[in-house]
């Protein structure tokens, strides 16, 4: 089994707010991230796929195909967007880095036919990242 990781970057705005909480609860739980005007990050995405090396091509996955899928399914939808307002997953879910990693997994998994998705890692800043392995 070989693991292959491809990186990409995107920039987006978000804020954290749960309408089930009172304004005070939202402020206490989410702090500065609760500012309704939003703030942004330069996110780094790492997508790791796994599989056996194809004896004919020497590839686990065609990197171009992986790049195209990441571009189409993730970057086109998220780059330079306000996540809460423009990305359907976050109309109801809070766009935390945890939920972002899950949403990216769910966008990619059905579209990758050659290799199996192993891990989605999303860096919100260089000092904070989330890994999602597709676990229930």
């Amino acid at each position, binding site marked *: 089994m070989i693991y292959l990781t491809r990186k990409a970057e995107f920039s987006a705005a978000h804020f954290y707010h749960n309408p089930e909480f009172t304004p005070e609860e939202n402020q206490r739980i989410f702090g500065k991230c609760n500012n309704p005007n939003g703030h942004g990050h330069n996110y780094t995405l790492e997508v790791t796929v796994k599989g056996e090396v194809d004896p004919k091509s020497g590839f686990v996955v065609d990197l171009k195909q992986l790049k195209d899928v990441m571009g189409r399914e993730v970057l086109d939808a998220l780059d330079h967007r306000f996540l809460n307002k423009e990305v359907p997953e976050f109309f109801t879910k809070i766009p935390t880095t*945890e939920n972002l990693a899950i949403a990216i997994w769910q966008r990619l998994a059905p579209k990758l036919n050659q290799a199996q998705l192993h891990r989605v890692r999303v860096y919100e800043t260089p000092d904070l990242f989330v*890994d999602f392995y597709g676990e229930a």
Partner: protein
Amino acid sequence: MKAHLTRRYMFSASHRLHSDEMSAEENRATYGKCNNPYGHGHNYMIEVTVSGAVHEQTGMVCNLVDLDGFVHHQIVDRYEHQNLNLLPEFAKDVPTTENLCIAIYDIVKCGFRPAHLEKIRIEETMMNSFEYAGENGR
């Protein structure tokens, strides 16, 4: 859905690698420059990885304010600008980065309740790093 969350922290500390159970020659042969009697220091980069179900209401594995508060008070404040050899956890154990990993893992494992500790990873320099995920870790 279960996710893993990793946060990085830094502190600077000094240490000297020396074992009282070895002769001066053995210490020198084992630890090389790190056995210099006056000690030396590093900027340690600590990665703390916790895991758990993403809470429906908050979208979080755990609140970063809680994790930052715990690690700053219990880890960074404890080690920042200290000589590791003088701390009680290194009274017997040599303050290698392996043992520092285990010491930090034990503090977080015993004290931090909001999420499950997966592992501690420490970069001693840009060229080396160490990981400890507990005795049953992967």
